[in-house]
């Protein structure tokens, strides 16, 4: 079984205290069932997770690193988008 013939899957784990699934890495597996088992065996050996998602890596559309200037740089100068211009009364506590 050569690795190139086996599709790649991205693995997302929801941790014990976590609210959302987080990307933890990837595994090779022939199908979704095997990918879930491989993810269990590779990424949850120390009690890390309560839930696993696997997604075919090929199904992920990614932004092109070459586009990062036009995609992300303009936001650097728009500090008014950060909610830091309000005074929050102490009684509100943590928001």
């Amino acid at each position, binding site marked *: *079984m050569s*690795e190139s013939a*086996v599709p790649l899957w991205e693995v997302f784990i929801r941790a014990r205290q976590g609210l959302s699934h987080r990307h933890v890495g990837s*595994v*090779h*597996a*022939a199908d979704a*069932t*095997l990918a879930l*088992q*491989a993810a269990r*065996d*590779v990424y949850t*050996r120390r009690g890390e997770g309560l839930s696993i998602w696997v997604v075919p890596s090929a199904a992920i559309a990614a932004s092109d690193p070459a586009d990062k200037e036009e995609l992300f740089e303009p936001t650097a100068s728009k500090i008014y988008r950060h909610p830091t211009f309000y005074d929050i009364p102490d009684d509100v506590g943590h928001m």
Partner: protein
Amino acid sequence: MSVTIAVAETPLVRFLLGRADDALILGHRLSEWTGRAPILEEELALANMALDLIGQARALYSMAAEAEGGGHDEDAYAYLRDDAQFRNLLIVEQPRGDFADTMVRQALYAIYAKLFWQAASRSTHPPLAGFAAKTAKEMAYHVRHASTWVIRLGDGTEASRARAQVALERLAPYVEEMFEPEDDSLTGIVPAVPELREDWEREVRSLLGEARLNLPDVVFSQRGGRAGRHGEALGHLLAVFQHLHRSHPGATW
């Protein structure tokens, strides 16, 4: 050189050693895949399962030590008994073979062990009942893992199907031995093992049906593992497994 220990085998000690030896020997067989598995993911899966089994063996040896009361610990049972003192089933000592051999054996044994430990969770011996409930869950995952592979091998390519079927033919003579009854004096402590057969057959036949494999008819069954009558394979395994401890008694990391 350290000497072989003499074990005072009451029926309970003998039973506990048998189940501990099953787990230890199969765990060792799975560990032999380390560095040799087809892909990294499968290597970790096999090592995880090997560690599950070796962990089970340790707990059972500790229970055996307490039942025996002869001052032996888990290392003494594992390293200082000769092959004729090992009480494991013959199926677990068979060489790891190819990936199909390993996965078919894993499915046949794990389905059996899952049913056994589920039943043993109702044992009247509290430490055993607690251990059994936890172990049944571990074995349920081994069943899931091995079944997934048996289906993919059996219902895969001509080559994988042929190998899986050959593995079944090779292992089928060792099935009968799994269902030998334990000593009468252990009734209540240990489940009635022959009664597990029906559920085992149903589960295995359903799996093999999905995998398009056939459970072969067995003309002559091999048995004797529980009585210490083992094949050559166990001697070789123990030579590798026990060599370090026997050459350097008390060696630690």
